[in-house]
């Protein structure tokens, strides 16, 4: 028995590790008709004035022109509405269970590890991935009930670029993104110096949408951390100095820079799946522009 016991424990652990994850587990309200409303206007834009700010961990002084940036990440409902318009207008096409759109391509410099991004149709979003919250019934795009006001995820850089481009907007540059989150002082987080669990959605932050014993982290509605209390769960108002929400945590956000000699696109803000250290405003992440994930979204600038 002594010899069998460790084997049984090991097998039990392995079986537990193979458990299927219910990606459609009920939302914390327990009712898809009743979702948490944050009261934040998802169509609003923040005005960022021209001027200098502290950029990066080592606080280099940089400057931007004036611009506007979305107050929240683009929501799943906004993206579904875009797809309905864009498909009808021929801006995107449905092919092999993917939404694709035209991208004019990047200059190629033959740098080590650099890959070609040629002009052509590139993936915007996959439709057959179980983690995708946007659905297509053959005619119309819609959002899985309850996720309408959550950030649009499972979207590639091309899909983010395409959304902004369709409305004659653009993805923010890394500098624009950081200034919008940081303001003009040296704070590491949009709201200030320190991070608490009620500030943002990050790994093991114990928000109502998370269950680390089963499906793990999930997105929270955009603007969730606004000081409101949801069924007893009290959040801290964590807007940036310019009033932006979710600039730390929830989902990584694609930025617009295309750098010479590399095909990677940069992501900012950390996500529901990262530790708090990745939520610091200067932290950079990057991925190939075709990458999509349940922890990646975007917002636009103009």
């Amino acid at each position, binding site marked *: 028995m002594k010899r069998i016991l460790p084997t049984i424990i090991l097998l039990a*652990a392995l079986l537990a590790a193979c458990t299927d994850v219910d*990606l459609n587990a009920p939302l914390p309200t327990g009712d898809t008709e009743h979702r948490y409303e944050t009261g934040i206007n998802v169509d609003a834009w923040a005005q960022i004035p021209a001027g200098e700010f502290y950029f990066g961990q080592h606080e280099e002084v940089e400057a931007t022109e004036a611009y506007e940036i979305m107050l929240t990440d683009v929501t799943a409902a906004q993206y579904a509405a875009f797809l309905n318009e864009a498909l009808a207008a021929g801006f995107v096409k449905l092919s092999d269970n993917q939404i694709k759109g035209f991208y004019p391509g990047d200059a190629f410099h033959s740098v080590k590890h650099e890959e070609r991004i040629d002009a052509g149709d590139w993936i915007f979003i996959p439709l057959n991935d179980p983690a995708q919250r946007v659905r297509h019934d053959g005619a119309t795009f819609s959002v899985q009930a309850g996720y309408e006001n959550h950030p649009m995820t499972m979207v590639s850089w091309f899909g983010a670029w395409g959304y902004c481009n369709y409305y004659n907007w653009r993805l923010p540059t890394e500098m624009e993104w950081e200034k919008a989150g940081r303001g003009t002082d040296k704070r*590491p987080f949009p709201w200030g110096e320190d991070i608490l669990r009620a500030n943002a959605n990050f790994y093991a932050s114990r928000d109502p949408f998370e269950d680390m014993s089963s499906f793990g982290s999930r997105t929270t509605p955009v603007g969730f951390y606004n000081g409101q209390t949801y069924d007893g769960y009290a959040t801290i108002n964590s807007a940036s100095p310019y009033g932006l929400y979710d600039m730390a945590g929830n989902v990584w956000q694609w930025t617009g820079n295309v750098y010479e000699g590399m095909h*990677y696109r940069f992501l900012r803000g950390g996500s529901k799946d990262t530790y708090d250290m990745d939520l610091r405003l200067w932290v950079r992440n990057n991925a190939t522009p*075709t990458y999509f994930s349940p922890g990646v979204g975007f917002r636009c600038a103009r």
Partner: protein
Amino acid sequence: MQFIKDRFKYLFASTKGLILVAIAMIAVVTAVWGMLSGPMAELGVREVVVKLLGMKMVQAEREGRIIILYHSIAMAVVAIETYMVTSLLKMKPFYKTAINAIITVGYIVTMIFGLGFAYFGHNWAFHGLYISGLSLIFFAGVLMVIALWPWDKEFYQPDADYARAKSGLDLERLAFFVTALTTVISALFGAIPGSFFGNGFETFLAENIIRYPEKTTMEYSIIGHLHIMLALIAVMITLIVGRWLNFKGILHKFAMPLMILGAIVLNLGVWGVVTPLEPVAHMIIYVGATPSMVAALLLLIWSWAKLIREGTAHLPKPRFGQRIGALLRDPLKFGPTWQMLFMNFTTSGLGIFMAVKLDEIFRVWPAREERIELTGHWHVLSAIIATIILLYYGDMLKLKGKVRQLYGWSIIVLSDIAFAGVTIFEMKRLFVTEAAQQPLVNALMYAIDFGLGMLLALLAVVMVWRLTDLLKKKGRWTEEIHQELSQEASK
């Protein structure tokens, strides 16, 4: 007063006492600082520790804090290896005393004031003392290079069973010398950029800039430094294990030239990273790593064959099971080379797989996934070296019978569970999507935490035992105070 003087003499003037102090210091730092990250942070333990100890965790200083923490632990490991070398190899007594004294002051000053500076507010006097500690360690390294000079006829190898040149030059001593010399030189690749800190050079973690096509010379220098220092610590522990087990014979004669060649080429490749040779530096590194790894493999073959031979000497015709039983009968002698072999599954093999499939698989994933692979990779490598030291320490303690079995097998099994868990965690994206990963992540975290937690608990038991032993008048320490590792190396 005599009570304290005797204990102080044991702890700071004898090889085994010095090793005990360094292991205890590492154990304390690992236990306390291990509570600041990972699952401990998730559970809220970090917040309690930070408040309790009055730590000042400035967000912008995290990377610098971590670098000082790594250095604090690594310097204690370097000190342990140094004590082992000065006790295993012949050298003039003055050098042995000087090296041990200087490196002891060096690593303790580095650890105390480094961690004081990094985690308890920026007192710049502490930073100065931290740098002074590192400088002392460097100086001890220079002295060790002088002490290991192999062309002194006094240190020539008279026994033809060991690798030696026609002149009698001891090739194993030459391997130790080359490793020590290149370690001292490679330290400069970190020290020089470090001296520009705040003056054109800013702190960074290599894993965060891995994908940037343009890096500065100082960044390349740091990246080279961290890679080669860990590799050289691994090469040195391999040489130490060889000496401890009394590696000799035909395989020794092949292994030592390979070890020397490997160390030199490996270093040239890594140093080349900051020169125009950078584009081919990786190829030189692969070329250099191969003979080093082959030499370690020869040590493994020799030591396993010896364990089997000695364990079955009483049997006229040993069966396969009896041979395996003989191989496994002493976990402290089997463990070090097993851990080296296991390292090939968890770090070397994985590293090669990553290199081969880099653009096809690993660089399709986000940089943060690649960071997990890189940090997991060298955490496991460092920890494997630590377990090899602990196995040797168990032998130094002359553990016998069931205690020896329990101590040895606990280290091997618990650490390997943790390392296997880390390895699967690093590679999880190959077989599970982000959306579906949580059950696997949870199971792996349990395995990793169980392995490492129990290993630390075992270490704590050993430390408490040693502490109580120190309180005894005729404790084990009174015997250890005069023992040298060279006298105890296997015959």
